[in-house]
């Protein structure tokens, strides 16, 4: 009897295919493609890694955290590869990080945005340290509860820190002549 006709084998294939398609959809919806990560590659790689893990030890009790780690390590590897590819032509690298040029943006707009990015960086650095981190996480797209979990505080405290911090940041940008900004 061939392996493909084994009902357990077929079921495993189906499970991994369903899970892989969810991973692919989430990679795409969370803008990871913006960082040079291909959702189809991630789906394929996750399926292969999980398949190997199951084949290695079929009687093992798989936990959600293990599966999550497989996905995380696959994406982190892909991010690193993408960064290496993008970093090759760049001359130097600092701990502060360097903005990658966006090919969809024209040179004038790029210069304009570059100016704004620099102003934002300066104004953020001028904020009190206690507010800087919650605001940075907020600007990075984290929800209030996520921010609270990450900085080890309550959601209400995180909300106040973000709200006051954003007001202060906008005031500083306005005072610096950068104009008005949305969140």
């Amino acid at each position: 009897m061939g392996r493909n006709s084994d009902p357990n084998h077929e079921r495993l294939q189906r499970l991994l295919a369903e899970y892989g398609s969810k991973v692919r959809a989430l990679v795409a919806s969370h803008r990871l493609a913006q960082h040079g990560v291909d959702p189809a590659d991630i789906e394929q790689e996750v399926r292969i890694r999980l398949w190997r893990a199951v084949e290695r030890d079929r009687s093992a009790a798989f936990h959600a955290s293990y599966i999550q780690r497989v996905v995380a390590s696959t994406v982190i590897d892909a991010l690193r590869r993408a960064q290496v590819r993008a970093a090759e032509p760049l001359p130097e690298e600092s701990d502060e990080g360097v903005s990658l040029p966006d090919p969809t943006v024209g040179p004038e707009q790029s210069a304009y945005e570059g100016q704004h990015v620099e102003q934002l960086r300066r104004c953020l650095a001028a904020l009190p340290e206690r507010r800087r981190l919650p605001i940075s996480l907020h600007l990075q797209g984290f929800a209030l509860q996520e921010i609270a979990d990450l900085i080890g505080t309550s959601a209400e405290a995180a909300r106040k820190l973000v709200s006051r911090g954003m007001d202060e940041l906008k005031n500083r940008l306005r005072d610096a002549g950068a104009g008005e900004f949305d969140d």
Partner: protein
Amino acid sequence: MTRPSLSELYRRQTLRPTLSARALLDSETAVRAARGRVVPHECEDVATALAGSAGHADLVRMLRELEPASAELAQALRQQAPAHDLRERISRQAHPRRHDRRGWQWGAIAAIFVAAVALFAARSSVHGLGDQSALAQMPLHAVDGIFGSQMEPRLAQQDLRSDVIFHTDNTDNSDHIFREQLGGG
């Protein structure tokens, strides 16, 4: 004219992660951050790393959303594991000869051991019997002087004084209690 988004500007600034973000955010940390279970003493470092890397921040948010699907898959794999165990057991039962052969091997070893012990015991008993026959072959006088036939004349010639009480010649001296003189005198 639409106002520029601070979030977009910030993410553009952090498209390329800082070195600390790359060093800190491994898969384990990313999963813990997604579950909101960052170790307290790591909180600030992890939060700073995530704030400095748009890619890792996106990954952590994605992992948070993926968690229910991962839990479902883990559950399904756990359900599949016992079925596999059963199949393995059946396939092991399909080769019972291996166990039989092993039983025969142990039986043979035990039989050899018993045979060796029996042989040793038999040899030691044969040696014991040999010693007995050698004893039997020894000259009688050397073995037992008491019952030796040559001792009889010696016993016959022994001094008759050895038994004074019943000695016939000694009636006068040995027993004075029943003397006639004592009765008369």
